[in-house]
């Protein structure tokens, strides 16, 4: 693997896709408003849950806002990178253009996962970070180096898990051809990540930590933020993230063996 080559190619990707997206300037403005409204909406929903209750699943309103912040950041990342790229896999496979990707002398997973970028997702990431900063203030969290590294590690792990989930689902397109909506199903499940896992019933909690690891994606990083998380949970998250990344990679290479181009 030639790292410099890949960095070089990635800057080219950035350049072309930004140029492409900036064609539609009003679109970006509308997307910004959408992101802000969406955050206001979910805080509004949270405030409905808390209007007569002090805690939900052991979380106070100020603490639940942290989950909201982390969800917003992750959603921004999904909208910036995962959504535009991984929905493209479906198109590649349907139209047979995956051939051109496979013939290129670079890693196909790299090409497919990072080709495009949607800049309007950046605002969501920024909004999420602001919300988190506000949460740090109202929850009186003192920041030190250990805290920061732990937060960063868990959030990076969440991003890895999220990416692997998206990539898994998109890879199944090689067999089913039309899994456009499978990502939509994943999206609706991920929606649950806006709320603390403890607010669900026991069976759903099991489902959301074992089958679809939403617990790992938002709840554990939020616990780390509050300094509530035990060390083994963080370790577990790192292991889960590694397992997900490696198996999604293996799965892609396995799936490619079954790829037979379009109309052949």
């Amino acid at each position, binding site marked *: 693997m030639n790292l410099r080559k890949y960095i070089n190619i990635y800057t080219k990707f950035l350049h072309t896709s930004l140029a492409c997206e900036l064609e*539609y300037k*009003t*679109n970006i403005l*509308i*997307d910004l*408003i*959408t992101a802000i*409204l*969406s955050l206001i*909406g*979910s805080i*509004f*929903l949270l*405030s*409905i*849950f808390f*209007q*007569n*209750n002090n805690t*939900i*699943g052991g979380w106070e309103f100020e603490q639940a806002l942290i989950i909201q912040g982390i969800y917003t950041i992750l959603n921004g990342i999904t909208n910036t990178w995962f959504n535009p790229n991984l929905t493209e896999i479906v198109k590649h496979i349907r139209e047979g253009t995956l051939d051109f990707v496979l013939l290129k002398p670079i890693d196909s997973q790299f090409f497919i996962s990072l080709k495009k970028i949607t800049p309007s997702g950046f605002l969501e990431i920024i909004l999420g970070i602001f919300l988190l900063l506000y949460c740090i203030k109202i929850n009186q969290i003192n920041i030190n180096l250990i805290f920061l590294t732990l937060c960063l590690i868990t959030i990076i792990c969440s991003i890895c898990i999220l990416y692997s989930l998206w990539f898994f689902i998109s890879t199944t397109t090689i067999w*089913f051809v*039309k*899994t*456009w*909506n*499978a990502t*939509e*199903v994943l*999206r*609706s499940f991920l*929606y*649950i990540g806006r*709320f603390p896992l403890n*607010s*669900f*019933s026991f069976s*759903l909690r099991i489902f959301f930590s074992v089958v679809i690891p939403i617990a790992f994606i938002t709840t554990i990083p939020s616990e780390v933020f509050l300094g509530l998380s035990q060390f083994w949970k963080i370790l577990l998250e790192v292991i889960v993230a590694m397992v997900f990344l490696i198996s999604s990679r293996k799965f892609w290479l396995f799936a490619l063996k079954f790829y037979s181009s379009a109309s052949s």
Partner: protein
Amino acid sequence: MISNLIKRKIFTLLKVQYSNMLEYRVEIALWAISGIIPFFMLNIWTNNNLNEYINISNVMLSRYFLCAFFVRQFSVVWVVFSFEEDSLMGKVSPYLIQPLNPFFRYFAQHLAEQLTRFPFALLIATFFFIFNPESIWIPNFGVLLLSVISTFLSFLIQFLIQSIVACLCFWTEKASSIERLLFIPTLFLSGLLAPVVSFPEYVKSWIYLTPFPYLIDFPANLLSGNATNISRGFSMQILWILLLFPLFKKIWSNGTKKYTAMGS
């Protein structure tokens, strides 16, 4: 003679679109699954006893969310996405020559899709009843009829709003981002995630003047047997349709004058 012709047109359109939709059963099943968010919300509500404060029993609330799921299933509209693709690809041009407004075609597509969806929605409801046997109920025929009508009216409102947005394609090419913007208030204010009765007073004071509560909250309350103002609900739905329809006609006639096929 004329009515016979219209009847034949509509019947043929529906038949063609239904067989078209049946081709993509799995896709539609996945769409149906992606609509299960109301059930997760129900889980948060009942698991934290939040419904005690709004005086709705567990059973009534679970019926409400089940009905919200159903109403949503049969009022999902995606015309703007189809229209955007068709107009970018230049497929609208042949449609415009035909002696039939292209929106009839999309309308038939939606109806056909709902028909295909129906068995999947029933299946999901059956699972719901297996897990919550106490919430089984049979609405009487009059209520059922009224709620089917109100669901259809809700579908019509959303179809009109989205068609108006779709017509903006004539000016901006990418109208789907406007639709995503409009989807946010629809999501949070329509009662899909929380019944409108639970909203704080400062929202309740104006929300009944907007179309949102009549999209899901009103039909769902009607069907599930929760308290709702039937006459106000229907009159507001009809009022909104009467307001939106002329707007759609206006924007359609202006838009088609503006239309230039791609590459001209």
